[in-house]
């Protein structure tokens, strides 16, 4: 099956070049001395210095991190509950509406989510700011958490939970001691996904934020609207570096775990024999 073919090698090479070259160029040009971003004028870390002296960016970054932390944490709790209700809840009144509402934000255009939430906040007389952005982000990212968690919940062996209940655990104990450890990897990746989505969101935040709560994407967007800027290149490089380290570490960790699991299984088989 794994015939070496020039066609496959070419499409992989071109494909990955297409995916990675633009980001690589961004990283390289963030170290450019010149203010003109298309002319190379020698290596410099000048723009990183400018970036860290720019109070506005630092403030926006701090606000964004707080919003992302709170919204992803609440979204993880709510999304896990929603997934549990859908996979384990059996039949209950309004189930169809519930599952529709849980998954709809996945396909809802961001402009509509943002618009509708702003209309709600204004209708309630709430001042827009960090609180409203956090509520908005929680609502759209809990759908992603639910998807990730429910796929894990629906594949694991239910008899483990039943055994715990039979042995006298309360439903909450069974969840905490049996279910939660098993679905933990999915809950963690759900949280990370929600966190990333919140960090990254421009459209919903533009609608639901107010004075004093400008998030980083809004700041970046208004800066790049006027054209390419070396400071934004520096900022992008930092973000790309963080994501790369995170994803590579996570995938190495899962790989190591898979190897360990395979080894344990093999030892288990030997033990039986």
């Amino acid at each position: 099956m794994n015939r070496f073919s020039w066609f496959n090698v070419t499409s992989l090479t071109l494909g990955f070049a297409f995916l990675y070259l633009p980001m690589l160029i961004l990283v390289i040009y963030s170290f450019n001395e010149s203010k003109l971003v298309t002319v190379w004028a020698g290596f410099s870390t000048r723009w990183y210095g400018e970036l860290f002296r720019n109070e506005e960016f630092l403030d926006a970054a701090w606000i964004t991190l707080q919003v992302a932390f709170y919204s992803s944490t609440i979204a993880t709790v709510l999304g896990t509950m929603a997934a549990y209700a859908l996979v384990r809840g059996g039949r209950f009144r309004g189930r169809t509406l519930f599952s529709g509402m849980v998954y709809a934000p996945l396909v809802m255009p961001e402009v509509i989510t943002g618009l509708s939430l702003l209309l709600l906040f204004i209708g309630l007389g709430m001042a827009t700011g960090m609180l409203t952005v956090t509520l908005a982000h929680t609502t759209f990212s809990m759908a992603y958490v639910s998807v990730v968690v429910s796929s894990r919940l629906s594949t694991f062996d239910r008899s483990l939970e039943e055994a715990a209940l039979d042995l006298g655990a309360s439903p909450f104990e069974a969840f905490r001691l049996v279910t939660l450890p098993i679905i933990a990897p999915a809950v963690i990746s759900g949280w990370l996904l929600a966190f990333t989505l919140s960090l990254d969101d421009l459209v919903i935040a533009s609608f639901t934020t107010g004075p004093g709560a400008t998030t980083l994407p809004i700041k970046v967007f208004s800066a790049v609207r006027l054209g390419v800027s070396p400071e934004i290149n520096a900022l992008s490089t930092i973000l790309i570096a963080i994501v790369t380290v995170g994803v590579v570490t996570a995938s190495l960790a899962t790989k190591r775990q898979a190897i360990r699991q395979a080894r344990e299984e093999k030892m288990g088989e030997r033990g039986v024999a």
Partner: protein
Amino acid sequence: MRKALVIAVPYLWLLALFLVPFLMVLKISLSDVALSIPPYTPQLDLTGGLAAIGEFFSQLDLENFVFLTSDDLYIKAYASSLTIAVISTFLTLLIGYPIAYAMARAAPEWRPTLLMLIILPFWTSFLIRVYAWMGILSNTGLLNQFLLWLGVISEPLEILNTNIAVYIGVVYTYLPFMILPIYATLERMDGSLLEAAEDLGCSRLSAFWLVTLPLSKTGIVAGCFLVFIPTLGEFVIPSLLGGSQTLMIGKVLFEEFLNNRDWPVASAVAVILLLILIIPIILFQRNEQRARELDQ
């Protein structure tokens, strides 16, 4: 009791922050613009009793929707969003399929790494990935510099601020969404089917056409919808890469609401966008259902 709580908390949250806001959009789309805060009329006053509620409903009308059909701008924006979404979905498929195919045919020990390399850009900021192209596609950008240096062109091509830049942006940012479902179906495919086809005298190309392609259909359909649906309401890509003549409904909606403050019309634009999206969403779910049934 606890089970009820587990259901009730997310349920109430979604009712309050998803369903109610959506109903408000629907309601405001039927209202009129007014110079007040909030800038529309009528407003529901529950303290006025049934008579006030009746009065409220009698003031709602389809005026904004009539206005949308009479104004060229909106019809053009919907049409051009659809065109851009269709063309860029097709381009993404054309570029994504060979990559997914090559990944599925790669040695098994390579596949997790390749998969990680496809997923990595997905975790990187969307805004930054779109922004990366601004420096490449501009008149003095790297692509033009490169082509001028090669001598292919004698003066810079105008790419940034055109629809071509929007296509590039969509293909670039949504490529992983196309590759992943296609890769998933191709990877599961039974290799002996291809060997059988070739043993029976099929050329490699016709074996691909007659065996591989039909078997990867669910992946192709899923990938296409995953690209098409978000592209239709896209805002960031047309704003940063498109020009003034690039009309996309997400951009029109954003500007109508935040700049012109015409909330009733913006709400009507949103309602129609959702109505257009319902068809592909239903088709997508049907495709997923079929894929699940085939799995079992």
